[in-house]
């Protein structure tokens, strides 16, 4: 395999006396979907916040394209090409899709020395990008509020990729979605991966992870048990690792493997 885009080496993060991360190593390669699994409180959020520049690691190093990196704030990480799509999206419901798509990155054209917002370009690109992602808009002026949750996630993902994200961190993108919408988002992840972007997919749903993941890292109480490739691990094993082993095994029988 080629060189990883980002390598988080033995990352530790302490909040006062609490050890949130106790030496986590994760690599993300271009064009792969790396699933980060873990139960609530396992340290997933802390880990991705460290990756996206919100937190500074207490110990360990971040290698971005082979070079050691220190992100002073999220802006640095975004500049470098690490984009995060949050559960609570950076979308404004009353604004049109194209205005949302280019929010903060508006294309300009100059007429009579005055810089104007190039709406034709914005509309065209938005329609193109949305069609690539399989969303048919009524028009670029359709308000984001009329889109479903899954479609909004897709707009946010398409936007991040369009503006040069090399690593895309998706923080539980499917946790609040229905079946149909989830499959849309998973399909989007697949499309983005094929464009050579490294995707970090955070979830506690093993099925969703297995549907698109190339590699799986399970976090448990701030530690990892290593990374497994697709096909090397069964859903049951992943589930057990996330839950920390025993308790779920006893439940499993009565629930009939539905978790």
């Amino acid at each position: 395999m080629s060189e990883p885009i980002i390598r988080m080496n033995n990352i530790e993060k302490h909040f006062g006396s609490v050890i949130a991360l106790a030496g986590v190593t994760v690599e993300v390669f271009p064009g792969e979907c790396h699933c980060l699994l873990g139960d609530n409180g396992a340290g997933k959020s802390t880990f991705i916040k460290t990756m996206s520049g919100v937190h500074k690691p207490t110990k360990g190093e971040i290698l971005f394209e082979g070079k050691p990196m220190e992100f002073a704030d999220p802006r640095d990480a975004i500049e470098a090409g690490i984009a995060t799509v949050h559960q609570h999206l950076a979308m404004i419901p009353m604004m049109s899709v194209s205005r949302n798509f280019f929010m903060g990155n508006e294309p300009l054209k100059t007429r009579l020395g005055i810089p104007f917002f190039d709406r034709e370009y914005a509309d065209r690109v938005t329609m193109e990008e949305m069609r690539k992602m399989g969303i048919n808009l009524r028009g670029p002026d359709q308000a984001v509020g009329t889109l479903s949750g899954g479609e909004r996630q897709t707009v946010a993902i398409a936007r991040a990729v369009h503006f040069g994200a090399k690593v895309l961190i998706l923080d539980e993108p499917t946790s609040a979605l229905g079946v149909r919408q989830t499959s849309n988002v998973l399909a989007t992840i697949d499309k983005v991966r094929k464009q050579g972007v490294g995707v970090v997919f955070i979830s506690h749903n093993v099925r969703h992870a297995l549907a698109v993941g190339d590699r799986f890292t399970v976090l448990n109480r701030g530690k990892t048990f290593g990374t497994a490739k697709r096909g090397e691990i069964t859903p049951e094993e992943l589930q057990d690792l996330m839950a920390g082993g025993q308790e779920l095994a006893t439940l499993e029988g009565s629930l009939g493997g539905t978790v």
Partner: protein
Amino acid sequence: MSAATQGADKDERIKEISRFRQALIRPELGGIVGTVAVFTFFLLTAFDSGMFNAQGVMNWSVVSAQFMIIAVGACLLMIAGEFDLSVGSMIGFAGMMIAIFSVTLAWPVWLAIMITFVLCVFIGAINGFIVIRTGLPSFIVTLAFLFILRGFTIFFPQVLERKTIIGGIKDAAEGDWLAPFFGGKVGGPIFEWMGNVGLIETFSRGTRAGQPVVDGIPMLIVWAIGLVIFGHILLTRTRFGNWIFAAGGDAEAARNSGVPVNRVKVLMFMFTAFCATVFATCQVMEFGSAGADRGLLKEFEAIIAVVIGGALLTGGYGSVIGAALGALIFGVVQQGLFFAGVESSLFRVFLGLILLGAVILNTYIRRLITGER
């Protein structure tokens, strides 16, 4: 719209929406409907009252233009998610400052106007900074400034001149180069020609016999049209306009996308103050005096015009053209009731009713846009 009709692979789940509903999702709709309704009403009831001859048209145009000037500022600020209740007091304050500088202190009028603009826009910026820094609702912060500015507007002339109206600005402005930009008129020769060929009436007696009854378009109207065009282009055609929508739609989401929300909001407070000062300067130059009670209740009239124009009180949605139409409705009705011989106190009743109607319509439109149920 064109892309939707040509899209070969259409989504079967997207229902075709009718042209009517599509038209309804324009913020200007309420304003357009209202304007048509108001003009129809007065054409039918007050056509021969003189409301639609040259003088009558000029009469309600000037009143509408006054509303428009402050409505543009209030509109952009409301779309950016904030209110300014100090607009009316700012009008009184700015007028009084010009009077004090030019009459009491005998500065040249151009200097008085410029210093007043700088001062008022600066106060607008203070409004904005307090709102941004404290996170308090702009409603409360600008309510405080409503009283602070009004207080000073009464206090200064009392202390300096022992009266609450300062006159004599017309004499001071004689020959000034900047004053005509606010108090002058344009298009004089055109109106003279129209009078000569009989398109508009001329005075038949007195010192102005032979001159047209309307001798030019006041600069107030020119300012109003200029500000509406500027505001509309700024909002819909520029990067900054997108930021205004974003700041009012969801400040947090806008910040996450790199929009300088604080800067946008402070600039909009400054622009609102600028519009109020334009209003005040035109008024002072026209009347030749400044009074401590000028601009009373103007902040509410501006907000009502903006809401009639389709802007949402919660921010993030609206239109400058709509606000301008709201101001036009306002002016036409206020003057029209006078022409129609209706008791003028009924104007307030009308105002309340149309405000209520507009807000209900806006809430409905908002549901249509965002797909809420």
